[in-house]
């Protein structure tokens, strides 16, 4: 299938130039990995007048540790996250998440930031960002904004980005103490799939007191942080009763729908099952045991 709409293409050399072009062209779209954009262009679901290719902005291709957080630049691909030593050491669950995204070929091009900009309900990058209290960093000609992840996702395919703004990266606070995390994604088979539902769990000890950070994907228009479940669990040690309590709260947190990928009933049921497995795996990992990051738990 070919692209039938005409559009201009520009590849700026600097961030300043990019922001200048962006503010002047209301109907422009930004190209990073292109794995979503090119598909949408072919299917004519978008029709920009101008495509701004930001692949020339080397400064956006960095993964850095800055001020107690991991910063992921707008051009960082999922493959680069998987290969990053920093990520592997300090936040291995990001490797686990990245490995669940599509297939190797897509991961070689698709970016983490592109994923949160497309903001489809089934995105894999969303739950970690909202659960960990991450930020999305945007820049326009006149100002820079740091948007909390939970405020970034407004609705399905709708974000807090304003016209003229470019997302330059995202940051995820690094946990200070002992921690374990887990991301489980439900798909229809073993091959690459969009999530029918997903769950992210982060468990850390702060002064030996357990702190839970939990979010679900694909079961609401946006990644849904499970504040209610977190509140019920925080400060309490994980055991069978607590897991049951957490499972029982799932239905009050997520609002799945029935669509071609799954029924509401199955999504609800699987959120419970996945939450249980993710909690247990996170705890095991915190204790230095448990399944290696990336192992299939469903």
């Amino acid at each position: 299938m070919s692209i039938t709409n005409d559009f201009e293409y520009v590849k700026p050399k600097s961030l300043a130039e990019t922001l200048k072009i962006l503010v002047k062209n209301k109907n422009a779209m930004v190209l990073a990995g292109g794995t979503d954009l090119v598909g949408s262009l072919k299917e004519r679901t978008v029709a920009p007048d101008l495509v701004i290719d930001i692949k020339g902005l080397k400064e956006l291709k960095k993964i850095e540790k800055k001020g107690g957080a991991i910063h992921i630049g707008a051009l960082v691909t999922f493959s680069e996250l998987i290969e990053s030593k920093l990520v592997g050491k300090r936040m291995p669950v990001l490797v686990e998440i990245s490995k669940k995204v599509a297939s190797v070929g897509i991961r070689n091009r698709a970016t983490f930031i592109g994923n949160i900009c497309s903001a489809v309900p089934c995105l894999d990058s969303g739950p970690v960002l909202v659960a960990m209290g991450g930020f999305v960093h945007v820049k326009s000609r006149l100002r820079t904004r740091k948007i909390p992840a939970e405020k970034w996702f407004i609705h399905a395919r709708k974000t807090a980005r304003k016209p003229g703004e470019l997302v330059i990266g995202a940051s995820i606070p690094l946990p200070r103490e002992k921690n374990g995390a887990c991301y489980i994604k439900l798909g229809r088979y073993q091959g690459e799939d969009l999530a029918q539902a997903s769950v992210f769990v982060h468990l850390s000890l702060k002064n030996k007191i357990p702190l839970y950070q939990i979010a679900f994907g694909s079961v609401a228009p946006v990644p849904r942080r499970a504040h209610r479940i977190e509140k019920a669990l925080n400060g309490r040690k994980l055991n069978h009763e607590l897991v049951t309590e957490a499972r029982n709260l799932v239905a009050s947190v997520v609002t799945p729908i029935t669509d071609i990928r799954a029924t509401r009933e199955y999504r609800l049921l699987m959120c419970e099952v996945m939450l249980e497995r993710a909690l247990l795996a996170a705890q095991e990992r915190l204790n230095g045991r448990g399944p290696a990051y990336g192992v299939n738990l469903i």
Partner: protein
Amino acid sequence: MSGYKYIGKSTVRVDGKVKISGAAQYIDDLEFGPGLLFAEIVESPHAYARIKKIDCSKALKVEGVVKIVTGKEFPYRFGLYMHDRYIFAQDHVRFVGEQVGAVIARTPEIAKRASKLVRVDYEVLEPVLDVVTALLDNAPLIHPELGKYQHVPWFFPEKNTNIAHFRKVRKGNMNEGFKEADYIFEDTYTVPRYAHCSIETHGAVGLFDHSRRLTVWAASQSPHTQRHLFAEALAPLGIKHKDVRVIAPHVGGGFGGKAGVSMEILAASLATAVQGSPVKVLWSRAQEFYNTYQRQGVVAKMRFGVKNDGTITALEQKLYWDAGAYVEYGANVVNAAGLSATGPYRIPNVYIDSVCVYTNLPPGGPYRGFGYSEFLFGLESHMNEIAKKLKLDPVDFRRKNAICEGDTLNYGGKMNPSGLLECIDKVAKEIEWGKKRVSKDPRKAIGKGFALFWKAPAMPPNAASSAFLKFNEDASLNILVSAMEIGQGFLTVMAQIAGEVLGIPPEKIRVETPDTDRNPYEWQTVASHITWSTGNAVKKAAMDAREQIFDIASRALGKDRNSFYLEDETLKSRTEPEFALSLKNFVINGIMMKDGTFRGGPIIGRGMFMPEFASAISDPQTSQGGKPNVHYTVGASAIEIEIDRETGKITIPKVVLGVDCGKVLNPDLLRGQVTGGMLQGLATVLYEEMRFDSKGKLLNANFTDYKIPTAMDVPDEIVSIFVEHEQPDGPFGARGVGEHTMIPAAPIIANAIEDALGIRIKSMPITAEKIALALKGLDLPQASRAEPPVCFQKTST
């Protein structure tokens, strides 16, 4: 054991190098120069509507648009077994995506842009989207002219209904059979529609030159049948068969989808609208899903009569097929399944209705398995349920009733040689039937499933194959045939057959894809009949060449031709061990006599095969008489699965398939067929399914939501077991096997799930979701499909 030099050996693919080197050209690789035009199809957005008006004026103004064609230019019907299909929709559209017109332009982009500007006014009609509605007395007639359609003599359409074909099989006396039974077991099973999902989509290029010669390059399983259908459909333009040429490059997968004629008719007819310019039609992945053939859905209602000891006394099986908007090919799936819907069992009293029902969904058609996968899901699931209720072992119960050589078939003929019992025993042993394994993981349940299968080629009784075989100066060979290499390894096996007869190693034999001008006739590459039928033709061509060699040598050398034999590219004599004449010395240039003259000349073999014993003529009320099927290939299959009780997800440690294909000509290629077929079949039961909305639009015309297996979904172990009871009329004893390897996949899974969890799921696919919800006592909304309102006791006409 056999004494064969090349037959039964794992000869390396003769088309391997051309494919792995990238030299192989597929339809979209062919170059046609700067004059090539591109067509984009204007498609119906409605499942059923009357076309009021088509306005092309805006689209015609787009720069680069060459021509716009609609049904007005081609008011012709065509079809393989029944002429019920239109090149372009005439007054009505009958499914979402149906071609209403085409924009021909200089580039694909222009064609596509302009196609969106063609304005079609429709009067939208209420579509008929399921067999229940289609069979109601007051159902809208999808084809009011059905009674006038030309069709093959073995179809029985019922005019003024939506029944395009009604196959009735009546053997013995059903009522007596049920009286004899101690128990009667009744149930209903449903199977949805499926897509072939060839990696290469359909594509064709047509060129109607200024001498009025029509050439079509097509990704094809059926070059000669396409030539015939093009010539038939376009006869009003004065086109004869001799004027039509179909060239078939390499094909990226067929599975039945590229058989017959579907979108290729567009390239053929559009070419005549832009004489002198080649025009290309290339399907997108979405079009590949909604406007080629689909595997038909079926609702199967069955009733078994069984004695206490497990003897089956009667079977009533009613199959209602959702055949879609046009059934020119799909009705024969209905026919074939009807004739064989007992499965491989000896059942004395049989009553089968196989009903082909028009609906406003895309046209049904051939798909690997040709109806057998569909009815065997229900039948083999039901066999297990019967065994369970009678407290019989499901394998013993099957074995007791398994059909054997000489048993009477549903239409009265006799069963061919068969190693079914041997397959059952070997497969049961391999899967360690009866031995229960318990998972270390308490969340996992383990189960085993078993099923039998059979299938006969479904084809006209006079479906023929032919072959030319040409020797070259170095005694290498070119074989010209018109069957297609669609991954099965056909080209390699033909080289093995000719090589065996002529003493030539297969690597010295070239077999390629056809051009109907140069290559002799072949009906189609379908029905698992090519190795058997074309193999026979190639064998005869090789024997013809061999006889010519013997004749020439005997005439030139004055030796007894009966003493000759061929070995190692050399003519040898049984009576003179020292005599050896290298073939390369004379197969082109002949043998020189003492006076300097020559005897002989280029050796060209010719072979033809048609099953002269076959007949499709039988009593329409009973199907008795005739011999519609040339042979059945039978086998057994078993699986072990692990199910996660919480998620419903299945993993497969081991699957086994045992088949009697008469004679294994190439073990490696056959193992490839078992692996590929089994994966394809497992996907149909585990996750594939075409989903339509309430207006008849396909919701998952993409691989995002129509899942086919990846390497990660392959069972841990796939074991092939080959049993050989030779087919007397097959080349070296071979019979068909290509489709069979996917047929038992659905019931072995369904039976293994029942074994593991005690739940019987009666509708495909059996997804993880369906299992998990069933375990919770929840029914999946989309799984509960309506059943046809046909009373079982009512004996229809």
